[in-house]
Each structure stands twice: as structure tokens, then as C-alpha cells.
């Protein structure tokens, strides 16, 4: 922040008595505290940096799904995947996903034939529609999978997609 850490100053460099210096440090910290709070009203809190590296860097859909928490998710008809059967531009394939499984907490989208199949995991706050829409890269024709996490279990649905022009380059 603005003030240098006290430990970085030579002893007695401020010329203030020890007690006064400590009081000043406390006041500075308190001020820093209020300043740190203020941006919360102006803009969202910083995005956390956690990222499921083992799942995202998995080379196969099966391994990515295992990293999401299950080797054998149950197939569900309550996961709706809206994507064109024939995608002309694999660089920008629109997909909409909706889960009707009660208690859905998160949904993940995987493109089997991409070098790293897991594209995204969406996690929803309680009461928020488990719906997400995004644009995928699809390297070549093959399955697009959605894995839903609900009540500590995983569920799966799959759509076969044909791609005219592959979208990884």
C-alpha cells in the first residue's frame, strides 16, 4: 500500500517515540482497512484464482470426468443440450445447456475430440437457474458431453455434433 512496512524502516528513523510510532502504524493499518473495503461497492470482489488444472489439462473426456469426481456418471434425460447437429464453424459453436435435475450445483461442458476436452465448469448459487450459454471451439466431429453435479452425484448427457470446419488452430 502507500506506507512502507514498519520492518523496512531503520529503527528510530521517524524520530517519533516508540509508542507514537506504534499508534501511527495502527492508524495507518485502520485506514488501509477502510480503503480496502471501498472498492467492493464500486466493482466486484477480485475473482478467485482456483482452477481445476487436472480436469482442464486431461487429454481425454474420460479422464476429465474422473477428475470432476466420478468415473461413471449416471445418464440423465433431465439435462438439455441445445446445439446444432451440424456446426458449420467449429471455432464458434453456440451451445445452451439446462439442467432440470433438482439441486443442480454445477454443470461442465466437454468436447470429446478436442486436445483437452473440458471447456468450462459453471457453478450456480442456490436459486439460480442451472442454465448457461456459451461458444465452444470444436476441433472435429464427435460427442459433446455435459456433466451435471447435483447432491454430490454426477449425471451425464451427450450429443453427437458434426463439424464442417474445425475450430482449433
Amino acid at each position, binding site marked *: 500500500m502507500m506506507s512502507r512496512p514498519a520492518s523496512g524502516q531503520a529503527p528510530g528513523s521517524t524520530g517519533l517515540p516508540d509508542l507514537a510510532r506504534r499508534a501511527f502504524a495502527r492508524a495507518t493499518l485502520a485506514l488501509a482497512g477502510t480503503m480496502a473495503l471501498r472498492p*467492493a*461497492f464500486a*466493482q*466486484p*470482489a*477480485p*475473482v*478467485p*484464482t*482456483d*482452477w*481445476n488444472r487436472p480436469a*482442464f489439462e486431461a487429454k481425454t473426456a474420460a479422464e476429465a470426468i474422473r477428475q470432476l469426481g466420478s468415473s461413471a456418471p449416471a445418464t440423465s434425460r433431465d439435462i438439455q443440450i441445445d446445439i446444432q447437429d451440424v456446426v458449420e464453424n467449429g*471455432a*464458434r*459453436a*453456440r451451445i*445452451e445447456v439446462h439442467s432440470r435435475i433438482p439441486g443442480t450445483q454445477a454443470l461442465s461442458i466437454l*468436447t470429446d475430440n*478436442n*486436445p*483437452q*476436452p*473440458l*471447456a*468450462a*465448469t*459453471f*457453478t*450456480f*448459487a442456490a*436459486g*439460480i*437457474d442451472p*442454465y*448457461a*450459454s*456459451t*461458444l*465452444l*471451439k470444436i476441433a472435429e466431429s464427435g460427442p459433446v458431453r455435459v456433466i451435471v453435479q447435483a447432491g454430490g452425484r454426477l449425471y451425464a448427457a451427450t450429443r453427437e455434433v458434426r463439424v464442417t470446419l474445425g*475450430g*482449433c*488452430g
Partner: protein
Amino acid sequence: MSTIRMSARMRQDHADVRALLTHPMETGTRRDAKGQLVPQHFIQRVQISHNGKVVMDVQCSQGLSRDPFFGLRVRGAKPGDRIGLAWLDNRGARDSAEVAVSAA
């Protein structure tokens, strides 16, 4: 200039939120004009908030398109409510923006 273009409009009982981000989303497998591999460069995290509370949290990869798009539905939102979006990429770059929900 902001990397975020976002709209939030009321549709029945929810706000329809659409956000288009400007980002190369490099896969790490593409070669430039000189034949050199272009390093991976992609958004890893996105959070969308409603009146300051996170409603959708995204972890993502280079498997999303260049200039990625995110759409969601925020049930219970009202006109004038604030919808925020913040992203973070694999190099630590970040951006955020906020819009007000507009009536249908």
C-alpha cells in the same frame, strides 16, 4: 477500453444476461505467420454477480471460443439491479464491468 460488453434485460421472472468478452483465447497449438507456436493465453475464471453477490462462477479453458460469450438467467432480478462480471486469465490479467438490469 473495456473488454466486456454486457446486457441484462428482464424476461418474465428473470434477467437475461449476455456478456461478450474480448480475449484471444489462444490454445497454444496455433502457429503465427513465422511458424512459431503462439503461447496459451486464455480466460480461466469468470464470476457474474447480482447486486454484489456471485450467482454464477465459471472455470474455463482455451476450449471456449475467441472473444468468449456467456449467457445466464438471474431469477428474482428486478429492473435497476446491478449485474457485475469479472474475469481473470492465465497470465493474471483481469477486468470487470457492471450494468443495470433494464425493463423488458
